[in-house]
């Protein structure tokens, strides 16, 4: 992970620039959804969300989101609330600090 004064710099394919705002917004929504699911212990939903993140993240250029998703999926399978929460926080931090540079 390339860091720049505490920020995370990600290089994204300029051709999908128009999709990025939507993608990031969806990830914000995911945080809300997972937090809610955690409250009701709906591990199936959390697992599904983690799975989706795992699939989509890296494709857009956000490898870290793929990793978070992967860990979240595993945590949901283990019904490990602490681990899930850790991933939710990781995602939140990431979205806050990520800096996107559009180049190949």
């Amino acid at each position: 992970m390339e860091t720049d004064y505490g920020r995370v710099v990600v290089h994204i394919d300029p051709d999908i620039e128009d999709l990025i705002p939507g993608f990031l917004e969806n990830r914000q929504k995911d945080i809300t959804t997972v937090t809610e699911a955690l409250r009701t212990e709906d591990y199936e939903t959390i697992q599904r969300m983690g799975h989706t993140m795992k699939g989509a993240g890296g494709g857009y250029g956000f490898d870290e989101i793929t990793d978070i998703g992967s860990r979240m999926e595993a945590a949901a399978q283990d019904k490990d609330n602490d681990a899930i929460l850790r991933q939710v926080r990781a995602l939140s931090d990431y979205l806050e600090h990520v800096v996107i540079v559009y180049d190949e």
Partner: protein
Amino acid sequence: MAILVIDDSADDQLLLRSFLQREGYDDVLLAGSSSVAFDYLGMTDQESKAAAIDLILMDIVMPDINGIELCRLLMKDKRFSNIPVIMVTAHANDRNLQAAFEAGAVDFIHKPINRIELIARVRSSLNLKYETDKRVQREKELIESTHKLNRANQKLRYLSYVDELTTIANRRYFDEFLAKEWNRASRQQKPLSLIMIDIDFFKNYNDTYGHTQGDECLSQVARTLSGMLKRPGDFVARYGGEEFVAVLPDTGLHGAEKVAESLRANVQALDIEHESSPIEKVVTISLGVSSAGPAPHSEPDLIVTQSDKALYRAKQEGRNRVVVHRHE
């Protein structure tokens, strides 16, 4: 050339479409569930026109139906079984891989998607489909050409065997089929009979009534003769200008003589006016009958000559009659 993406993740749908359209694949359909996919494919309504889909990119895990199950369904349907299916999924373990290929998927791409890998596999599957479609089209054209050729040949055969004026069999047909019937008769040890027929004073008829009327007379007589020989295997052909010949398989002399007499009577009964005929005032025919039990490896020439001789005698003896060739 449309590509159908079946994936419940909107993010993945958009990403795939973006990658594909960038490569020039403009027509990308997005389906978030199997029912939307079915609609695009035209599976729900038999009458609805299905989009022409050349490739399907499908995830395995979806809310309403398992991607592998969906793949299997598609492969069973003749309308879609030739559309290549590439599984695009994050669930890439051996069990899934095996199940996907067994269900009929042609390829597999892992999520998160590598654009280069996606394009390479998409291109290769589309090329294959394109080539396959071309081949299927060529085969269809080939089959159609073959049919056309067969029909043309049939028509040609028909034309080459039919007398144009009277539309009954012509001399060529007679020669060929007499030979066939002769052989069969000799194999089956059955008799074969021949009746040679000639219209009486036909030259006079043409002189009196003109050639057009003459043609009409020939056609009428031919129709009558042919109409009376309805037994399968019997046929009458136009032998020459005003001459006809009838072949009667499985018929002996006695039977042939009876047939000949009724031919003669029926032509006379047509009552075709013939002023310049010195014998009757209507058109009549003379007939010569011969018969044989063909010996093996013999030729039918003799039976033709014999009925011809009998016909000659019929003319000599006054016309409008039947003469039978009897073996001395």
